[in-house]
């Protein structure tokens, strides 16, 4: 076991994969000489040299597309999108090219690329630098989507993503880069496998990314005997672990850092409701951000993300009544 910052866990995973597999290379904006704007590629240029660790121009379309071509021809590129929003200009290469090419080659080629992106709110970067945007990529068969929640998952799932033969999108909560956590570098995690962070019987909480920490502290603070699941992989999501837990607790809440409409959690709630309808004790529901851009003001941004207090309020209500609690904006009378 080692104590590492989240960003160091990422850099260590990249380094370990590069040592293990000479096909792995990384490129992106300021990832080489500057070692990454968030220091997630510390030491890589020095150890692996400028053939395998490259700075690119500010050209997300070019370097994401180049990753696709290089992957088909035998490399395993890992590219970094500095802020998830910057994927916008490269979306074609990932969603419409990389994710489709195995299918379009009758299974004769694969595209083993990893596209990493920092995401999420809480740091006052404004609405063009604070979204999670999982829903840009989640409805893309052929693409796997991971969202990291701590140093251990950053290390183990990054390695799994690089080893995966298909395109994988890895979302990294920016607010966690500096956080320390224990990392067991021998621990393997599988894409598509959720992590049960805490066992419990009162309600199943499914979350991921930076909100896992908030869920943990809500459970500690309230003493609610919730089962907390870090979904970790959004596509393909771990139906078995989630449904098993919901069957046991009879209750489900999905806690997401994304607008209420169109979130990945809707899929979980819909599936659990349809599959386990008879064994539910209460209505499965979601705690999300409102359907609004991420506001810049600190006062607003703090309220915007699901907070510990709001999670406790909603869990308590759901367990007591079996009904879906109101959102904070409904209580404040701000929106239906």
């Amino acid at each position, binding site marked *: 076991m080692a104590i590492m910052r989240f960003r160091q866990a990422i850099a260590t995973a990249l380094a370990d994969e590069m040592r293990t597999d000479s096909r792995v290379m990384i490129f992106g*904006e*300021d990832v080489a*000489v*500057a070692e990454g*704007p968030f220091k997630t590629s510390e030491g890589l240029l020095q150890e692996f040299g400028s053939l395998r660790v490259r*700075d*690119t*121009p*500010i*050209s*997300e*379309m*070019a370097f994401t597309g180049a990753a696709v071509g290089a992957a088909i021809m035998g490399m395993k590129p890992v590219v970094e999108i500095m802020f998830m*929003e*910057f994927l*916008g*200009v490269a979306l074609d290469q990932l969603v419409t090219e990389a994710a489709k090419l195995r299918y379009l080659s009758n299974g004769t080629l694969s595209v083993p690329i990893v596209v990493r992106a920092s995401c999420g709110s809480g*740091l*006052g*970067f*404004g*609405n*063009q*630098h604070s979204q999670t945007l999982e829903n840009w990529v989640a409805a893309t068969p052929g693409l796997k989507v991971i969202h990291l929640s701590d140093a251990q998952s950053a290390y183990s799932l990054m390695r799994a993503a690089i080893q995966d033969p298909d395109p994988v999108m890895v979302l990294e909560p920016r607010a966690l880069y500096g956080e320390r956590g224990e990392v067991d570098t021998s621990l393997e995690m599988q894409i598509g496998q959720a992590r049960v962070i805490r066992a419990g019987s009162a309600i199943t909480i499914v979350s991921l990314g930076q909100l896992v920490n908030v869920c943990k502290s809500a459970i500690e603070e309230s003493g609610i005997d919730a089962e907390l699941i870090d979904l970790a992989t959004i596509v393909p999501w771990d139906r078995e672990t989630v449904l098993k837990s919901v069957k046991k607790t009879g209750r489900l809440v999905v806690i997401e850092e994304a607008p209420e409409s169109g979130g990945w959690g809707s899929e979980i709630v819909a599936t659990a409701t349809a599959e386990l309808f008879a064994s539910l004790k209460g209505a499965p529901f979601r705690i999300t951000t*409102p*359907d*609004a*851009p991420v*506001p*810049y*003001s*600190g*006062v*607003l941004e703090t*309220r*915007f993300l699901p907070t510990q207090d709001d999670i406790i309020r909603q869990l308590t209500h759901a367990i007591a009544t079996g009904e879906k609690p109101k959102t904070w*904006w409904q209580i*404040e009378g*701000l*929106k239906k």
Partner: protein
Amino acid sequence: MKTAKVRRLEIATDPIAQYVRMVEIRQFEEQINALFAAGLVRGSTHLCQGQEALDVGLASVLRATDAVLATYRGHGVALALGLTPESVLGEIMGKTNGCCGGVGGSMHMCDMSVGLLPTSAIVGAGIPIAAGAALAFQTQGNDNVAVAVFGDGATNIGAFHEGLNLAAIWKLPVIFICDNNVYGEYSRIQTTTPIEDLHMRAESYNMPHFSVDGMDILAVQKGVTEAVDRARKGGGPTLIEAKTYRFAGHSRSDPGLYRPEGEVEEWQKRDPLKVTEEALISRNILTRESIEKIKSDMQETLQAVIATCVAAPEPTLASIFENIWTPTKAAK
């Protein structure tokens, strides 16, 4: 308090007012740095010290009915176009007196009364939008122009090439201004771009192009005037490369350690404020004493602005839900 429109007109012809605005931008950015350190500004911020001649030179040539698309390094453009220091600082501090009511932040400046469309945090995003603004002007048959200001790094992004090509084939009244401040984020332009003179890229779009000394407001005004005149007369787009320098790092977290020793000092010899001061003194428009007075008055003015913004109210929770859609039956 003066409105943005009034402040915009102040710098149209008066060289003293133009100099004062440059001093305002310089001191404003220095104050932002200090406010950041004091914890009164959160998130990130991208300062523009060294680029004041470009911002003020450009703004002095334009009309309020023209459209300007700028970037996250946009405090200077906003102030130059006339936004008050209070509306810019209020926004940076996330207060209700900010130009976006405190929900936009440092990277997002806007005031449609002086033609400043919302500045973007995405590299290159404003370039095709400027072409679109020009498309509207062309279709409407007026002689307004659109301007996109962007950094050197943006010339490597698809939106730059697609936007220039479209503007060229449609002969749109748009001026593309590349603010070549030598660095794109942490990378020196030569490491990411195979040519030295970025304006040469317009050759492949058969578009007029040239560079100007971005440290000299007179050179900026001359170049921009030429391009604007051409665009207003239906002569189509121009790419101007303003050679400038970013005295600060890329953003708050960047001290700019990648810059070779002595480079900042070398550029500081051509500090746009200094260049303007020397020109105004040699033309007997200002004296050393009057310059000092301008600077100390500005310090006082900005301290008052800071006090106002510190005291300004925070936005209410209701503002989270405002201005997402135009109020219609369906949007409720």
